[in-house]
């Protein structure tokens, strides 16, 4: 595994994730285009957990694995931030922030953005299309030497 060195922001000054030891695999898999969630590796348990942590809150096993998700989910909620904001975000405001519950595991929820395509700006989606329950699909955006998940509306 390689360690990603970051300054905390991208070229356009958006914040970059600063992974800790528990979260690093999530970002490493993301760089490979995979959405993986930590799961207990104890044979009798196997429960998913998020955010990542050292041991399983159900059986207390320290053995974990990273399970591949389908990348499909539904919007659980969303907000539209307006300024005052950090300058890079203010420049794209109002944008949306969505909370996605994963189709494979509705209790696992990921904060993200609904965009028109992987490389589109945070404010690219028409706000009228934001809807709780809307089906979304993960895409990955390369930024500042990392890959961060973003979400597009699932094609029906």
């Amino acid at each position, binding site marked *: 595994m390689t360690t990603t060195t970051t300054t*905390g*922001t991208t070229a356009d000054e*958006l*914040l*970059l*994730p*600063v*992974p*800790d030891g528990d*979260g690093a695999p999530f*970002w490493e898999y993301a760089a490979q285009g995979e959405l993986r969630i930590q799961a207990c590796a104890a044979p009798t348990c196997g429960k998913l957990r*998020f*955010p990542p942590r050292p041991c399983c*809150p159900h059986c207390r096993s320290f053995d974990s694995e990273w399970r591949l998700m389908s990348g499909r989910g539904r919007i*659980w*909620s*969303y*907000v*539209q*931030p*307006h300024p*005052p*904001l*950090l300058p890079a*975000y203010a420049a*794209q405001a*109002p*944008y949306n*922030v969505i*909370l996605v519950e994963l189709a494979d595991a509705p*209790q*696992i*929820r*990921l*904060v*993200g*953005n609904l965009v028109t395509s992987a490389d589109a700006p*945070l404010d690219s989606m028409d706000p009228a299309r934001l809807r*709780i329950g809307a089906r979304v699909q993960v895409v990955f955006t390369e930024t500042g030497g990392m890959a*961060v998940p973003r979400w597009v509306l699932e094609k029906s």
Partner: protein
Amino acid sequence: MAATLKDATAIVGIGQTAFAKQLPQSEKELACRAILAALDDAGIDPSEVDAFSSYTMEETDEVEVAKAIGAGDVTFFSKIGYGGGGSCATVGHLAAAVATGQASVGVAWRSRKRGSGPRPWKNTAVQLPTPGQWTRPFGLLRPADEIGMLARRYMHEYGATRDHLFNVAMACRNRANENPAAMMYERPLTREMYMTARMISDPLCLFDNCLETDGALACVIVSAERARDCRQKPVYVHSVAQGLPSQHHGMVNYWNDDPLSGPAWTAARHLWKQADFGPQDVDVAQIYDAFTPLIPLSLEGYGFCGRGEGASFTEGGALEIGGRLPINTGGGGLSEAYVHGFNLINEGVKQLRGISTAQVPDAATCLVTAGEGVPTSAILLRA
């Protein structure tokens, strides 16, 4: 036999500075002024103080405060985590210390310059603590954004509307209009102002957010026995609780089974279990209102209504004086001052002394809560 905290201690002094967008004094000086005012209110000499309690995001620490006010030897001090969730826990910690003989005169305080000073979310470096990796890069930057996310889901699940949030903002503003110390004194709010206000984090608008304030407050806690000899009518600490729910996660409580049941539910269970009365017996409540949606969520959490009924509870003037449950009678964080919830504690004391600027007739019981969303705390006060 287990010791009980029930009515074993009392708040006997309260003090505050002016509240303003900008005050010339330092946070340290404001803290000392509020603390000395509270001790003077109690009629207790500062040299008798032997316990301090504060909560995180407080820049003034007990060493500096004790030295400045001329406290004696201090035998108990604590600093509670999670910022605004710790306000009521300061009273709880001091009540426990005094009741168990670890100290005799306790001071809790809050001093801040958020009106003119830095705001944490404006600083890129502090945006990225460990949990921040899952939220901040996506532009979920401020507490208003984090609570807005819960508010939208709450509206979706229970049919709550912006009119319900307006009911909360309006009740607080109406009380501030009666309180000359409030930042929003003589500044009425109308429904039209609310509905046309600029959005901060849609669905939350400007008036759903607390005020940025410079100011400080403090209170003094002693044993019930000693309280009888103090200058003021004692306000007894009847029940105290902190709340950090199973599988909770900081402010963004999105990763448990039910994100709409936050720390208030946990604190409430313990609070009522220790009390001689229940929610139906509460005369007045001071509910942490950094954001309007925290009120319906807290009304549910503390058992004033059922799950999903918090929004409709606000209808028909229920939160106003003469209503079912008058709240935030000094104006709260939304309209009196946002001093991380400490003004709610002092306002609770004023109500039970009978000296509030929006007095609830014969108020004898008061619930005060700390920040909901973060690990929290609450106290029940009685006259």
